[in-house]
């Protein structure tokens, strides 16, 4: 019997096979750190008198806490400043490369790794952040870890792990115009649920996945965790190699050839068997949005807010009722009618250059709904610079959006970019949990295209709705 991609990567990183129920010891190729989940890990090393085993396989960046305005001034929030300063001091003490606020390579850790060419196929990648699954888009085994594990990797460059189960997610057919990678992943999560992927590595396969760009693949793998999965991955192909080639840390010359030879072997064998398989037809996918308070509570934009009374499962019924109450919705209300206060375009899910380009294309020459605020936060400083070179910043600013500096920003509201209580957002981020974007804030997860159309119409919308939107805006609605 053949093996799956995940199993191949596991075998290639096996330092020591666990005996008598002990976990396997897996080698980690790249460890990324940020200011929130690392301070206690470095403290642990210090207390135990341990060193960082491989500073040359470790990189740090400031992202979760960092302000997106006035980045040339000291961080106003003292606790945030302490946390960022702690990371800087730890990086210096332990000899770790760091990209600080103001540096061209600062940004969300999951945007920075790929853009530097540090993420490539066939690797194991970890970070104290659940969205590390993003890097699986390159055909790597990439997953989020807790702070104790961060300390473990710093000290040993390995992790004791039990093998994950494997799940194939086959996405066949062709994605209709106006639907994107974000809609694919939101539909998958709605289908399998927030716990559906627990214990699994998901491998996204099929015609629709093959046609996606690397950035779109990253969007999909990024949200694997929202289905409960530890990791998500896509086998590498020419699209992957093309993306990696020429990046600062990409292999060169003979190393490149050796790498590509190996990368071409990174596919699931035809006769391999997954523990579970799920199939979805991309051709059926409309723009998808969430209505509730977990990412599995999503529906096509054309749907209405569900009626909990019609949900058979008692837990789901109660969860839906709680969510509807928190979100300030009424069962039966069309999702398209929901007025949006804030549109957030950014995050490790949809803060890359392609996402900014897609949104800019929609809003160019159109007018923003007067009551709707739009915040555009590039995923990294380099994405911002590239967008500025392409003139996208001007498109956003002329439209009336706020053009910010890079970071996690309103995805989790650890910096000043937060929703107010009962404020409703359409957000290209990854989590619609209660209070995630600010206490009492109400989040609807959307694609960059839906975000852009929503900023124009002021209600949850897709680009297909825009002919009407212009009339409405013209009428002063």
């Amino acid at each position, binding site marked *: 019997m053949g093996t799956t991609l995940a199993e191949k990567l596991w075998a290639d990183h096996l330092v020591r096979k666990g005996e008598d129920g002990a976990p396997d010891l897996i080698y980690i190729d790249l460890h990324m750190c940020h200011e929130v989940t690392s301070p206690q890990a470095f403290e642990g090393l210090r207390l135990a008198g341990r060193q960082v085993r491989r500073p040359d396989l470790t990189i740090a960046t400031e992202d979760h806490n960092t302000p997106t305005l006035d980045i040339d001034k000291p961080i106003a929030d003292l606790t945030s400043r302490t946390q960022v300063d702690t990371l800087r001091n730890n990086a210096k003490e332990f000899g770790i490369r760091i990209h600080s606020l103001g540096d*061209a390579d600062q940004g969300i850790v999951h945007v920075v790794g790929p853009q530097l060419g540090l993420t490539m196929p066939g690797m194991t990648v970890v970070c104290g952040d659940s969205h590390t699954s993003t890097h699986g888009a390159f055909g790597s085994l990439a997953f989020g870890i807790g702070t104790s594990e961060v300390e473990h990797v710093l000290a040993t460059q390995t992790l004791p792990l039990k093998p994950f189960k494997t799940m194939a997610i086959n996405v066949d057919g062709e994605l209709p115009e106006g639907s994107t990678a974000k809609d694919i992943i939101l539909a998958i999560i709605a289908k399998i649920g927030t716990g559906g992927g627990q214990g699994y590595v998901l491998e996204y396969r099929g015609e629709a996945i093959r046609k996606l760009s690397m950035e779109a693949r990253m969007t999909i793998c990024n949200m694997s965790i929202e289905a409960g999965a530890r990791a998500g991955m896509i086998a590498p192909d020419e699209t992957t190699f093309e993306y990696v080639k020429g990046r600062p840390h990409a292999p060169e010359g003979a190393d490149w050839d050796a790498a590509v030879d190996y990368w071409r072997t990174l596919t699931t064998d035809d006769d391999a068997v997954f523990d579970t398989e799920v199939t979805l037809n991309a051709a059926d996918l409309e723009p998808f949005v969430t209505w509730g308070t977990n990412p599995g509570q999503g529906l096509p934009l054309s749907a209405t807010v569900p009626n909990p009374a019609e949900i058979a499962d008692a837990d789901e019924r109660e969860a839906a009722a709680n969510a509807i109450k928190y979100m300030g919705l009424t069962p039966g209300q069309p999702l398209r009618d929901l007025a949006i206060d804030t549109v957030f375009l950014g995050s490790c899910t949809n803060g890359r250059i392609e996402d900014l380009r897609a949104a800019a294309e929609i809003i160019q020459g159109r007018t923003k709904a007067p009551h709707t605020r739009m915040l555009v936060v590039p995923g990294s400083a380099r994405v911002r610079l590239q967008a500025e070179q392409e003139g996208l910043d001007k498109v956003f600013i002329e439209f009336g959006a706020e053009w910010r500096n890079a970071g996690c920003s309103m995805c989790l509201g650890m910096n000043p970019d937060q929703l107010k209580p009962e404020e409703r957002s359409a957000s290209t981020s990854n989590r619609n949990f209660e209070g995630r974007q600010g206490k009492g804030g109400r989040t609807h997860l959307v694609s960059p295209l839906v975000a852009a159309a929503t900023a124009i119409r002021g209600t949850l919308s897709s680009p297909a709705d825009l002919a009407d939107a212009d009339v409405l805006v013209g009428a002063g609605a």
Partner: protein
Amino acid sequence: MEKFTTHTGIGVPLRRSNVDTDQIIPAVYLKRVTRTGFEDALFAAWRGDESFILNQDEYKAGSVLVAGPDFGTGSSREHAVWALKDYGFKVVLASRFADIFRGNSGKQGLVTGIVSQENIELIWKLLETEPGKEITVSLEDRTVTVGELTVPFEIDDYVRWRLMEGLDDIGLTLQNEADITAFEATRDAWRPKTLPAKTDEKFVVEAARPAQ
């Protein structure tokens, strides 16, 4: 880490599914650089609500949390485990846990026992009928006892052994350091290194604020 064999304490029925880590500890509390002192942050958004279970006198001193399915979903923040521990919880029981949360718990000595939803319902009823009732969790026998009711729970064998022995993972791994060194000698030349740092020369940017 302290050894764990058996614990008896007040059971807290938390009738909610999908309790994500943003609910366990909101992101605003993650800015601390210490590993302790998170007790005030536990379920911060819900603690303001008088009817919330931990605001009821009988449950305040709870140490065994009995939750709905998919407990600990979302962010990888270990702060969620620290907050539960700092508050005084020693055990969380649920029918399903998010992977990262369960892993983090094991590292920190918080027992996460998987109990069938059917039995969770029974335990909820007992705890609600008699608020402040104690639960005994035996890691040795893998059982939960509430009054007359004793039900089994599942936990990974290795995690159970490590918790019962109170062993530190890093120390265990470093016993095999020779294997790590041997593995490192076999790594391919193309695998990237973060040092020396390389960057994209296309955009030259002056740091807005030099790193200290």
